[in-house]
Structures are given as structure tokens and as C-alpha cells.
């Protein structure tokens, strides 16, 4: 059996390419002998012809001048002069149009344009004062009506009116029309309506908004609080992207802030004082006395607040202390002992807390026996 197997394998080993390849180097000693026969075998096998040692290569290998496989496994050499063509094409330059550059002088509103804001207190067809000034028609008719309607509503609800002057985003206001001067010069247009807050609002640029309050308000409300109100309104406006909506938000927040300012005015009692007094447009408060009054008012309010707060804290502590010290007694009861238990009958509640989505009542653990315990 073994002999038969060996006889079967012998021709295969002799004819295989491996056998031919392994014989290569040894045939190199006599390259001429047997080479045509081997080539014939390879051609007949259909495989590509194997490389053949030349005598000089063989000698070089023997002397160590040639190392087999050096070209494959040695370190790759880089041609220092080789160049790589750029694979990424430069992107085209940004084609976003540059903002239109206008002449700064063109942005400044002319005196004629500004005069349109201040010729008189405009009235609507129903005879009501319109607190919105938009002679440039920056708002659409609907937006104008909405905004004017809101300001009118505010004037009915509040003692402090808002007079709104609308400008475009990048328009500049001439120096002679800065808000302080305007307020002093033209605030009288609305003097019948009570204290006024003048507002310059640039559509699309809420951060450029300016605000000026009547002198009677300024006498009570500190400057930083006025600025806080303006900043809050600006922040609220930036919550929106649409220009008209920005204006809506701005006015909504300003109206809210003015409500609190109005409350402070009431507290200070200033309104009662000014109610029957002369018009306030020319009311000039000397700076020194104004600061002193502000300081005194703030100190007094702070003192009252501090005393009140202290009293409240002391009261809370005293109440808590009395609660902690209080002792509660129960009458002794002669309850019947059950289940042979000396101290407790054990009919208490049990709640599981496995499922956060179920209320405790659905996780209340009731046992059938418990009800019978209680009944018994």
C-alpha cells in the first residue's frame, strides 16, 4: 500500500513547478544544461517563465555583493527631485458681494427729513395722538398700524408714554437732533399725555436704540436703571430676526420695564407732587441736588429694605426656633395587642420605587393579608 502511494506521488513531485523552481539555483552551476527542457515544461504548464540566475549574479551572491530581496525589503529611496502635481485645485475666490459702500454724508439725515419727525404731534383719524413717528415710511402700513396701536394701548395703560422715532438701519442723526436736545425741545408735543420716554429706534439695528426719559422720571429713577431697561429691550429685540418683530419685542419689553418704573414713581410719591404742578418740560434739576436726592432716596430705600429684610429673617428664624422647641404630646391609648406582637401591629404602608414612570399610588404594595389584619 505504501509503496503504491509513493509510486503515485513520484511523477507529481518531479513535474511540479516547485520542483522545477527549487532546482533552479543548482542548475545555475551549469546553466546551459537542462534549461530548454525546463522552459518547455513551464510553457506547457501555462505559467509565466521564472527568472533565471546568470553566472555573474550567482558569483555576486556567493561573494556577498548581491543580497537577495534587497530591492523589495530595503528602505525605499525617495527621489529628492521628484515633484507631485497639485491634486487640489485652488478654490475660486469668495464671490460674496461686498457691502455697498455709501458715502457717510449720504447716511446723515438732512434737516428737512428730521423736521418731518417734529412738526407736530400727529393724530389719527379718530383724533388720538399717534406716538409713532415714521415720516420715511420705513414700516409697511400694516406694521405701522400695529405698532401705533400698541403704543396707543400702552399710553392708556401706563402713565408713562413712549414716543418712538423710527430710522433706517444705517442712518445717522444730525448732531443738532440728538435725543437729549430733541427731548427737551419737542417733548412738549406730548406734554398733555404726562411723562414721556423718547426712543430713537433704527430698524434692523436694535443695538443703536437710544432712550431719553422725562426729567421727572430721571429725578427718581437712577441712570443705570434706565440703561438696564434699554439693554433689556435691546436683548429682547435680538431674539427675533425680522425687523418689524424686533421692534415689537423691543417695545413689549420696554413697556414692561416702564411698568416697574411707574411703580417706583408711585412709591416715591412724585406723581402726586407733579400732578397739580406746572408743566414739567422746563423742570430743571440742579445736578448737585439731583445727585444728593438720588443718594438720599437710595439710602432711605435701602435702609427700609434692609430693616424689613432683617425683620423678616429674624421672624423666620424665631418661628423656626419655636417650632423646633415645641413639644407635642399624645394621650396614652390602650390599644389591643394583636398577633402576639408586644409593641406594634405592623399595618403600615409599603411603596416600591421600581418604575419612574408610574405614580406612587400605582406602586403601592398591598397585601391581601394586610386588609384582613386591619379588619381584625
Amino acid at each position: 500500500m505504501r509503496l503504491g502511494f509513493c509510486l503515485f506521488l513520484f511523477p507529481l513531485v518531479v513535474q511540479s513547478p516547485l520542483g522545477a523552481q527549487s532546482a533552479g539555483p543548482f542548475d545555475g552551476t551549469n546553466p546551459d544544461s537542462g534549461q530548454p527542457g525546463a522552459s518547455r515544461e513551464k510553457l506547457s504548464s501555462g505559467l509565466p517563465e521564472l527568472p533565471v540566475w546568470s553566472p555573474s549574479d550567482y558569483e555576486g551572491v556567493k561573494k556577498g555583493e548581491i543580497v537577495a530581496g534587497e530591492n523589495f525589503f530595503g528602505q525605499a529611496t525617495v527621489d529628492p527631485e521628484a515633484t507631485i502635481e497639485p491634486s487640489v485645485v485652488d478654490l475660486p475666490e469668495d464671490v460674496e458681494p461686498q457691502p455697498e459702500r455709501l458715502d457717510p454724508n449720504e447716511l446723515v439725515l438732512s434737516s428737512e427729513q428730521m423736521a418731518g419727525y417734529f412738526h407736530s404731534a400727529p393724530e389719527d383719524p379718530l383724533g388720538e395722538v399717534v406716538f409713532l413717528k415714521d415720516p420715511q415710511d420705513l414700516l409697511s402700513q400694516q406694521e405701522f398700524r400695529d405698532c401705533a396701536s400698541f403704543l396707543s394701548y400702552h399710553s392708556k395703560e401706563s402713565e408713562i408714554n413712549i414716543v418712538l422715532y423710527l430710522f433706517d438701519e444705517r442712518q445717522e442723526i444730525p448732531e443738532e437732533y440728538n435725543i437729549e436736545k430733541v427731548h427737551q425741545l419737542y417733548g412738549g408735543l406730548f406734554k398733555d399725555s404726562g411723562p414721556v420716554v423718547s426712543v430713537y429706534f433704527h430698524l434692523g439695528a436694535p443695538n443703536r436704540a437710544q432712550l431719553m426719559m422725562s426729567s421727572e422720571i430721571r429725578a427718581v429713577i437712577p441712570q443705570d436703571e434706565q440703561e438696564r431697561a434699554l439693554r433689556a429691550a435691546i436683548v429682547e429685540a435680538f431674539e427675533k430676526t425680522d425687523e418689524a418683530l424686533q421692534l415689537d419685542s423691543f417695545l413689549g419689553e420696554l413697556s414692561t420695564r416702564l411698568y416697574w418704573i411707574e411703580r417706583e414713581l408711585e412709591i416715591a410719591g412724585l406723581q402726586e407732587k407733579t400732578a397739580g404742578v406746572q408743566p414739567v418740560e422746563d423742570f430743571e434739576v440742579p445736578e448737585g441736588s439731583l445727585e444728593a436726592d438720588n443718594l438720599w432716596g437710595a439710602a432711605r430705600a435701602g435702609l427700609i429694605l434692609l430693616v424689613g429684610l432683617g425683620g423678616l429673617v429674624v421672624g423666620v428664624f424665631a418661628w423656626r426656633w419655636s417650632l423646633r422647641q415645641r413639644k407635642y404630646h399624645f394621650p396614652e391609648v390602650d390599644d389591643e395587642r394583636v398577633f402576639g406582637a408586644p409593641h406594634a401591629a405592623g399595618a403600615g404602608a409599603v411603596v416600591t420605587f421600581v418604575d419612574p414612570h408610574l405614580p406612587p399610588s400605582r406602586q403601592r404594595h398591598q397585601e391581601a393579608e394586610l386588609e384582613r389584619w386591619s379588619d381584625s
Partner: protein
Amino acid sequence: MARECPHCAFSIRDVDRVFGQDDVRLRTLTDAAGVLRRKERIALRGRLDQFQQNFPQLFFGIYFGSFRETPSLRQFGFWLLNRGAFEDVDVSRPNEGGILLSVDVGGKSAGITSGYALGPFLSEDATFGALSGAHPYFLEGQWLRASESVLSRVTKVLAKQSRRAEREANELRAHRENTGSSDGGLRGLREHHKGGRKKSEA
């Protein structure tokens, strides 16, 4: 003393067979499950001491354990309040005046057991209300806040019940003085509690 339930024949011997029939020594705050930090233990002990100051006849115990293999947390609470000897509770406060909050940390359940002296004043609904208030904290594993919540609610309920009991005792005393009746006493007082204030007025 009824030795066993007339319906199911349950008695303390049944739970003694499960948990042991000997008394066990423990403190009012026992954290067998090891869920409380040191600061939390100190804070909770302070609250328990405060409870004892407010209620000279009562004490509140809290037990954190893990009872995955035991059948009922209610049975454990019942057994512990009957067999527990609380080291940090004065002898003038027997276990009848004890309230035990047992928390099964592994099995995620909590129960309240109270002694006989609190039977008329601390109903099962009241204890369920206390546990319900603490349910969110139990769900989040905030054991200190859960315990404080339960303790706070139980304190409020008991304070209210104490005031009511005092008021009704005064009314009862005045009624006895007016009518010259000598019967009543503890039994009458208990009947008033069960019937509530409206009933007594009627």
C-alpha cells in the same frame, strides 16, 4: 391579647421563624446596606434627635437594608419594631411609640411601621402620603433626602394630630365637667379620634 389572626392564623411566630425570635440590638439609624455617607448619617441622626425632642413619647427609626430574598418588607418592619432594642432610645420611650422606616435598597421598596401608641394618630394613608412625598428621592437613590422628606411629613401629621388630640381632650374634659359624667377616659378619647372632630361636635 390575640395570639393570632382569626382569619389566616398569622402571628409574630411566623415572622420569628423567618427573621429570628431573639431581640436584636440596633440604633435608630441603621445603615446595613451602606448607602449613606458619613455626613449624611450625621445629618440624619440630627433629624432623628430633633424628632425625639419634639415628641417626648416617641422615636423614629430608619433601617436601610437589602432583602431580596425575604418575602415582605412589611413583615420585616413588623418584626423589627417588635424585636428591636434601640440602644439610643431612652427606656421611657417604649417601642409602642416607635415609627420605623424600613428601606429595601436592593428590592427598591420602602415601608413604615408604627407602634400601638400611634395607632389612632398615624393612619396607613398618612404613612403612604409620607412615602409618596419621598418617592422621587427614592427613585433617584437620594436616601438622605428621601428619609428627611418622610420624617418631615410624619412630623407634620403627628403635630397636627397632637394638637387635635389636645383640643378634643379639652373639649371632653369640659363636657364631663358640664354634665358631671364620670365615665369616658381613654376609651372615650379614642372614640373621638376615630369619629373625628365633626362627629364630636354633632
